[in-house]
């Protein structure tokens, strides 16, 4: 072997966190390598579909001129609350969503991620694909000094490694930043189909005036059989991303097949007309870390930092993740730049990464929703009982039965009381508020 392959920084994983970190460091003048196991950046990545642009604008102010491969701007969004045979739809549409660039776009990751990685490469980062990082290299004092890959003579050295490996946090564990695997109670399994539909059909069905409009729908209730979790329907350029996610533990406990839960959702009487004639072009599944603030890994160790899904940076309530990843990646990159300037790669120095993140929405939101996962698990009635109740109440409210309205109101209240006591409802609302206020 001739000499060591050495860089100023190594990034593991070319997802949003890794690329944002690499881009930041390359622009700061560091010699950076991104190692990606897929055949291209994004080959292994999958998400529901809504991407928020604010974080991207932060690392790449001129991103719009660089023509990112977005699907559709999100100009209408909201919730569908499904009972087995009906739905309450609360959607928000506004003229103010109609601007360019928009605040949110639907995105397909196998199209977006390669573009984002290209921007880092254009800034000087070296992108190596088809290469799996097998382990971290450490010195005799346990400091991370590089990585080993599955390539022959595949060791690569750098004083700082940024782990952006995604939800399967094998290296994060190896770095000693987290003690163990995520328990199935704190990780969601989501399955999704991309269904092809002519843009024209799509626009008619969703009431869109053209390709500059798009819809993002989060679905509760019957979609997950009343269990904690959500479904989603997002419009792409000429197709629909439709999926459903639940805590992995629910699939295990109830012995459910995720693709059958999704199929049931697709057959729901309210959903089915939207998909008519569509062809399934791709099916996929991914885990989503939902361990929350209190179970996040340590974000930095000697010579190493972690960002994105690997660090549990997901806000499930607001379907955010890629924006958290990009902001965190950027800050990890900035910290690496500062570390090079100071010549100090110790955990103590790199811990400023976390301090800086605490000043941003990333850790503040995660902290606020720290009780969310536990709350949903302990209060399953939110997904089942309440959603069904609302639907049945709506049915009575909107139908004239020749019954005096006073009686109708009594009926609705009686229905509520039968399924959940008033103190129960009050208690649930209190718990919900607590989970949301942090």
């Amino acid at each position, binding site marked *: 072997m001739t000499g060591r392959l050495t860089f100023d920084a190594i990034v593991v994983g070319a997802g949003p966190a890794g690329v944002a970190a690499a881009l930041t460091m390359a622009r700061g003048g560091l010699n950076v390598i991104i190692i990606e196991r897929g*055949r291209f950046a994004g*080959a*292994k*990545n999958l998400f529901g579909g809504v991407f928020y642009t604010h974080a991207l604008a932060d690392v790449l102010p001129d991103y719009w001129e660089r023509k990112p491969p977005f699907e559709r701007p999100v100009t209408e969004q909201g919730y569908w609350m499904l009972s087995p045979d009906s739905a309450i739809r609360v959607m928000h549409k506004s003229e103010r969503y109609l601007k360019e660039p928009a605040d949110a776009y639907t995105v397909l990751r196998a199209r977006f991620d390669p573009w984002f990685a290209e921007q880092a490469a254009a800034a000087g980062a070296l992108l190596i694909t088809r290469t799996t990082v097998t382990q971290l290299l450490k010195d005799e004092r346990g400091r991370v000094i590089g990585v080993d890959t599955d390539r022959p003579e595949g060791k690569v050295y750098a004083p700082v490694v940024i782990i952006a490996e995604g939800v399967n946090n094998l290296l994060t564990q190896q770095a000693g930043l987290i003690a163990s695997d995520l328990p199935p109670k704190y990780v969601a399994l989501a399955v999704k189909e991309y269904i092809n539909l002519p843009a024209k059909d799509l626009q008619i069905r969703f009431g869109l005036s053209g390709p500059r409009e798009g819809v993002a729908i989060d679905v509760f209730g019957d979609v997950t059989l009343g269990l904690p979790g959500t479904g989603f329907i997002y419009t792409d350029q000429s197709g629909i991303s439709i999926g459903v996610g639940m805590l992995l533990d629910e699939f295990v406990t109830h*012995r459910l097949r995720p693709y059958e839960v999704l*199929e049931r959702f697709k057959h729901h009487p309210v959903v089915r007309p939207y998909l008519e004639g569509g062809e399934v072009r791709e099916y996929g*599944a991914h885990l989503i870390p939902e361990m929350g603030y209190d179970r996040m890994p340590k974000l930095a160790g000697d010579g190493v930092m972690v960002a994105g899904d690997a660090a549990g940076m997901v806000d499930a309530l607001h379907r955010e993740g890629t924006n958290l990843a990009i902001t965190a990646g950027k800050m990890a990159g900035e910290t690496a730049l500062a570390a090079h300037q100071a010549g100090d790669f110790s955990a103590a120095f790199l811990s400023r990464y976390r301090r800086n993140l605490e000043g941003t929405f990333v850790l503040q939101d995660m902290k606020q929703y720290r009780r969310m996962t536990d709350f949903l698990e302990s209060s399953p009635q939110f997904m089942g009982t309440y959603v069904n109740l609302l639907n049945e109440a709506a049915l009575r409210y909107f139908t004239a039965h020749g019954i005096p309205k006073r009686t109708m109101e009594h009926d609705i209240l009686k229905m509520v009381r039968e399924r959940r006591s008033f103190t129960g409802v009050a208690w649930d609302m209190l718990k919900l508020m607590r989970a949301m206020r942090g």
Partner: protein
Amino acid sequence: MSNRTNGQTAPVADVQLPHVNIDDLIVCLKYYVDEENAHIRIKDLAICAACDPKPCLAFCPAHVFETDRHGRMMVGYQACIECGSCRVACPFRNVDWRLPRGGHGVAYKYG
């Protein structure tokens, strides 16, 4: 870790799920199968044999796990979409799961 044991699985009441032929879904996926190297292995087949609910037969989104007619656990790693569920959800931690070698495994076209 997981303190779940055998027999604690419970069906969701009153729900009939439609049958899905998983092969119809998998067929639209692009794979670069590593023929020489299985990235998923069962650590101890006896543990699977003794596992009663065998939740992996259900939760695995690509139906990688299947039992043969003698009830022996088989792993069709070629269909794996690398979500990692089996790695963390096997109640006995009996799945040895690694990342496929670089460039191998699933490659999403849409993602």
